[in-house]
């Protein structure tokens, strides 16, 4: 009888502990959006834009974001004056509404025309509706994990090169 009581007490304690301790992020930006920001930063490491898109090797790579300010601020903290690629190009985050030239564009929700030309821009769209079909990269969710789909033909048309390391992890459209 003692053993049964001990077992019940042990089992009850485990269940109670499991039910009690729940820790959640207190960031104002949801985890999914935090991850998207990190993915955007990582994309710049594996994509090579044609030289014609930069005036000189020291030119910046602009990530133009059509998302709330809190997202831009978080992405800004991530890139934090980082440089990428062989040419060590400086990354910057700008709001799409004031952008002039963009290497990477992140659209959360936009179905009308963009305020800039897209010749050398890689467009990344959020998961969900296909609200901007002219994208090169699209986020999607698989088993609660963030994944991305790449449209290789669109990259080729723009003469933008994607590293095989990135393609290995992508779903190819």
């Amino acid at each position: 009888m003692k053993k049964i009581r001990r077992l019940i007490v042990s089992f009850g304690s485990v269940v109670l502990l499991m039910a009690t301790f729940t820790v959640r992020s207190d960031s104002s930006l949801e985890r999914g959006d935090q991850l998207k920001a990190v993915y955007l930063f990582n994309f710049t490491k594996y994509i090579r834009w044609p030289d014609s898109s930069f005036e000189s090797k020291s030119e910046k790579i602009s990530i133009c974001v059509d998302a709330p300010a809190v997202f831009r601020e978080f992405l800004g903290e991530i890139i934090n004056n980082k440089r990428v690629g062989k040419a060590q190009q400086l990354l910057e985050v700008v709001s799409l509404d004031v952008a002039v030239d963009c290497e990477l564009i992140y659209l959360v929700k936009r179905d009308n025309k963009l305020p800039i030309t897209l010749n050398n821009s890689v467009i990344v769209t959020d998961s969900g509706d296909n609200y901007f079909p002219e994208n090169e990269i699209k986020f999607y969710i698989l088993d609660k994990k963030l994944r991305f789909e790449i449209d290789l033909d669109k990259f080729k048309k723009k003469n933008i090169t994607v590293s095989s390391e990135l393609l290995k992890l992508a779903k190819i459209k």
Partner: protein
Amino acid sequence: MKYFKYIASFLFCSQCFAQSTPSELAEMSFDELFFIDSSPSASTSPWTLGYAYKFAEYKGYLDGDSSLSNDEVLWEPGNEPRTSDNFPVVPTVITQEVHTVSLAYDISPQWQVSLLVPYIRQETDHISIVGNYETFVIETDGLGDITTQATYRWNTGSSETWAIGFGLRLPTGSIDEEGDTPRAPGDQELPYTMQLGSGTYDFPLDVRYKLSGKHQITLGASANIRTGTNDRGYRLGNNYKLTSQYSTAVSQKVDVFGGLSLVYSDSIHGQDDALLIDSPFPYPASITNPDLYGGKKVNLNIGLLWEATSDFYLKLDINKPVYQYLNGPQPKENWTGAFSLTKKL
């Protein structure tokens, strides 16, 4: 009570790791990022607490793949000669229950270390030809062998994941359990099946491949490699297992799964001399003969996984052998059932 405050402070410390800073996230590779749960309510704690209950029942006998009744295994003096295939004592039903508490810590999205502490309870019903022991029951219970293990995961595509695990199983379970058997008056050393541990340092290894999606496929290979010889002069056999499993979601919160596994187990190496009797046939029961362990099994398994909350899972799992070829006469596995709770702290 004094220990509770240390345990509580240790668990509350999980909040120390609750949030990754932007610079920490920026340092992560895609391989690491691919393992981070993106759902809004997901816990970001690296700690996972688990509890699992497993039940197994062994009933009836097999010699190779031929079934034998309890009466065929029981030696009846006067009616039949004593051979190496019949015994004066016959276990009829063996039940094993294992309660396992586990605590896992994510060192990184790809590396996880864990500790598993099992509590084992076993019971065996017997029949015998010995007076006053025509039927008798033996029970043992206590701490089993504690396992520490590490797992590394990596991606080979948007939906393909590999994992490799390796561990060390410590000989914390008793191999000196005693009980009242017909072998002699009073308590004596109990057979291998009634012991709570292996008595040796064992190395569990496994490799898994998972193809995620609407229809999820998991393939795995695992082994439990035992080393040395324990204090009682034997080493339990190694186990090897190949598994395949299909799972699919039947609702937003529930997945069902089914699969097949192939299991091969070695017999016991060496023997515990305390289990023998002084006779031309030294084994009083099949379970005291180290050669009558191990064999091959094909198991069918079905179950379901319920996601109660984004970080609290319940899993039910039932296994039924559909083919067994055992080094016998040996008690055959009837079925096993398991349920587990997993909570991200």
